[in-house]
């Protein structure tokens, strides 16, 4: 694994601004009735926010592939847990 590279400070401020903007977006979207789409939009925004934190604040963008796998494998595990449990609940 290589030496760390120092990210420019504006990266952090920039991603912070985007995170707050997305927060307002997700909040605003909740007040428009869209049925099941509301939750879909909320979660899509959450995934985007999480990705920004992971890639920039947590430096995954420049991290060794092993770390990237370690970072995603937990989310992958939850996805399996929820998907297969739902496959039961939704088809009962």
């Amino acid at each position: 694994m290589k030496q760390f590279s120092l990210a420019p400070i504006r990266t952090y401020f920039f991603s912070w601004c985007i995170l707050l903007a997305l927060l307002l977006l997700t909040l605003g979207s909740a007040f428009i009735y869209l049925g099941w789409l509301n939750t879909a939009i909320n979660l899509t925004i959450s995934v985007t926010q999480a990705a920004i934190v992971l890639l920039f604040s947590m430096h995954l963008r420049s991290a060794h592939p092993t770390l990237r796998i370690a970072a995603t494998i937990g989310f992958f595990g939850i996805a399996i847990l929820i998907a297969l449990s739902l496959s039961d609940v939704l088809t009962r």
Partner: protein
Amino acid sequence: MSSISVAQHENYLTADFRLWSWLTTLDHKRIAVLYTVSITLLFFIGGAAAALIRLNLLTPYSELVSIETYNKLFTMHGVIMVWFFLIPSIPTTLGNFLVPLMIGARDLAFPRLNLLSWYLYVIGALFAIESLIAGGVDTGWTFYTPFSTMFSNTHVFAAVAGVFIAGFSSILTGLNFIVTIHEMRAPGLSWFRLPLFIWAMYATSLILVLATPVLAMTLVLIAVEHFFRIGVFDPALGGDPLLFQHLFWFYSHPAVYIMIVPAMGVASEIIGCFARNRIFGYRFMAYAMLAIAAFGFVVWGHHMFVSGQSAYAGTVFSLLTFLVSVPSAIKVFNWTATLYKGRISFEAPMLYALGFVGLFTIGGLTGLFLASLGLDVQLHDTYFVVAHFHYIMVGGAVMAFFGGIHFWWPKVTGRMYSDAWARFAAIVTFVGFNLTFFPQFIVGYLGMPRRYPEYPPEFQLWNVLSSTGAVILALGYALPLFYLFRSLRDGPTAPSNPWNAKGLEWQTSSPPLPENFLRTPIVAEEPYSYSSDGPSHG
């Protein structure tokens, strides 16, 4: 012989004799010894519960203990054997001892975490024993809701707390191994030069790290629900008890692979050594273990075919279960093929390893019965299931564990034991095991349910056979206690490589130095570079 004569150096056992130095040790080898002592103790507690269960089942009328006591006995047997013996067994003892040695490292990456892991294990075990002393738990090791949360008045909380704490011990061990195997391999030791035992530890660690947190949080939910009498598993409030089963088996099915994959690693080391042959299909063996670890996470619903789970979900889980059987089959074939054109000898470790292959094969094949949707309806929650998983976990995992103990005993203790006694014990164990558990397949298809202290009299013959076998099995497990202890006192001194085995752990002294190697070894050859044609060279 590439081993170094280091007789004049102190070893990890003689470095410091004070008890305090043991309780604060950061040496992975000493922590392995601490673990070995602790889990042996728990193994015999769990074994005592099993003995009482089998004794009680000699007659159909539960004449030895009351049905309440029986329920607590099988719960304690399950909780202790699963979480305080089988899951930690090979990883925390042989794994702790061997992972750094086999990859040419001075220690695990995080020695303090390793010691913490042992303390957590001990605290967890104390909670479990406390629940036993306080009066026991009667939920079964599966803690099914709403029984465990709303109906059981026994010491559920202490047992759950014990398992929860032991879970963190598992997580720390897994984390430590993964980092160590990634970062601390000796120069030249590339991934495909690793012994299969290391691959097994790696695959196991992945499961430990990814599955155990799910168990931990599920246990938190059980404890909260048991305590506050409200929760998402309670059908009276509109909750779903099957949700608990999904969460529980998401951990507990992979947990089976936590028990058996390390055994596969041990068997590979032993069979390669005593067949003096390279492991046939080495890469496939490594991939198969990773595949088992990965697929193990998507098959849990096969525990729920008759639970009220949807038929569609059941179908998906059944299909996935058949797929996970393929890598297990590959492994059995490869062990067999490793014997081909070998130069085979039959010291005690090899007998244990061959016994493992045989029992694991039967366990695996009967697993296919249970994976089959229609057939599982008849077999589910009967003694067929009990027999099947004992073939995997006891026939498979424990047999290999004993094999591993015998194989590395000279390395760990620096003493040789009596091979004749050890071979006798291996045979006794194999015979006793089959007599104990094979009749259970038959009585299971007849319909005898699990967790029954009383049963219809027409099942008695099979139960008597099983209980008789248990006596022989107990003898097989007790024998090593005697001859292994005796070897500590007056066994001959072990050379650094008594079996002429390959692998870095045999290149240091027996017992190893506190820092494992005098200088970091450099690896330049493939694993298992045994040569069967011609005299063995170390």
